């Protein structure tokens, strides 16, 4: 105890070096031991606390405050979008009138685009099946202990390739397809719906 309190070091301000300074008017105890005072100045180099990214910190407040801010920001975005844009509502469902183009919701439109390009067995079964199985199996295939991108080139390139293809297919299906699934330019005709 006493060496901790008496510990001296590079004292920046040249204040009462090595002399304990009273902490506060009221005595205070830590683990049942009374703290008499602290020595101003930095601890000697060897004992100095180095902030490390692998250190642990308390979730409250450090993480929870950030989560609170993230939550408020998310809700603010939802609020602003909802004030500015109304959800679409077309005319009542009519099984007799098929719209042209007939589009799936945007998150399935990549699949619909694939179906227009390939045989249904490929586009409707093999590709979606392979995507789901591939995603589930990924952590069991990629067993390396590397996390930096430059050490995981195969995994990163494969994942990125599929992701980019998927995004492009979604954009094509959503914006670039018009009547009879023909090609349209979104700035000339708009057929995307959310």
């Amino acid at each position: 105890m006493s060496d901790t309190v008496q510990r001296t070091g590079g004292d920046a301000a040249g204040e009462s070096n090595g002399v304990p300074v009273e902490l506060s008017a009221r005595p205070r105890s830590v683990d049942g031991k009374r703290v008499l005072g602290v020595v101003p100045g930095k601890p000697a180099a060897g004992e100095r606390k180095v902030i490390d990214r692998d250190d642990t910190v308390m979730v409250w407040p450090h993480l929870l405050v950030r989560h609170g801010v993230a939550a408020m920001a998310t809700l603010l975005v939802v609020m602003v979008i909802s004030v500015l844009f109304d959800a679409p509502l077309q005319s009542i469902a009519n099984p007799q009138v098929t719209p042209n183009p007939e589009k799936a919701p945007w998150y399935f439109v990549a699949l619909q685009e694939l179906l227009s390009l390939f045989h249904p067995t490929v586009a409707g079964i093999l590709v979606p099946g392979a995507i789901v199985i591939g995603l589930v199996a990924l952590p069991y295939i990629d067993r390396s202990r590397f996390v930096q991108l430059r050490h995981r080139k195969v995994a990163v390139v494969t994942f990125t390739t599929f992701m980019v293809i998927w995004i492009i297919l979604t954009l094509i299906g959503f914006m670039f397809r018009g009547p009879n699934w023909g090609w349209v330019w979104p700035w000339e005709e708009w057929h995307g719906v959310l």
Partner: protein
Amino acid sequence: MSITEHDEERTEDRADDPAGDPIDRVYERVRETPVGRSIFRSPRRITPRDRAAGHWSNFLLHIYPVKIRRKELHFRYSWYLGVISMVLLGSLVASGVYLMFFYVPSPANAYTNIQTIQNEVPFGQYVRNVHRWSAHLMVLAVAAHMARVFYRGAYKAPREFNWVIGVMLLVLTLLMSFTGYLLPWDQLAFWAVTVGTEMASYVPIIGEPVKEMLLGGPTVDSSTLLRFYVLHVAVLPSVMVMVLMIHLWRWRKDAMFDQQAEDGDE
């Protein structure tokens, strides 16, 4: 020796020392008055051990680990996409429950109910907008969460199985969104679901039966609307909450395990 530990902790939590800051000193005094003691049940938690015990015994905080690695606090670590997805789910539950009060899942009522929600129900249009845009944003957020976890390498041991649970949650999110898509019973809903379920029928052998089971018949009709409604408001949310609980539980349990990466991290 505890005082040394305490001293070190102060580098990250300066507020630990009640003597340091005048406002803190006032706060401490207020807590010691009879009124203060009646408001705060337990003494002020000052040492890290006290605070960990407080966290540990708090019901609302039980889904969080007590401590986390400092690097995981940063925005660039996760982009907070997990918590954003959770918040959007909360927004969807809140707005969805409100909409349920004014909605009957039958072809005769559904569409006019939506019109009533938009034109007569207080804040109806706004709540419907919140529900719809939150749903789209949640699909984006969950997909982006997956991509971020991939690029961080955070699916690696010991978190492989939590990644698998995450894939399940992505699929559930898509199904939730898709079943909700039909409920307005307008042309957009009707034909999008017709196209979507048409794709299921391409699967050999089980495709057609699965499609008919979903639709309750060969085409989208009143039984489809009822089935999608029940899936959307009861079955899928329950399943999703259960799977989500496992996801969060694993996250909390694994939070303190180092991934033992051979190359440090980004």
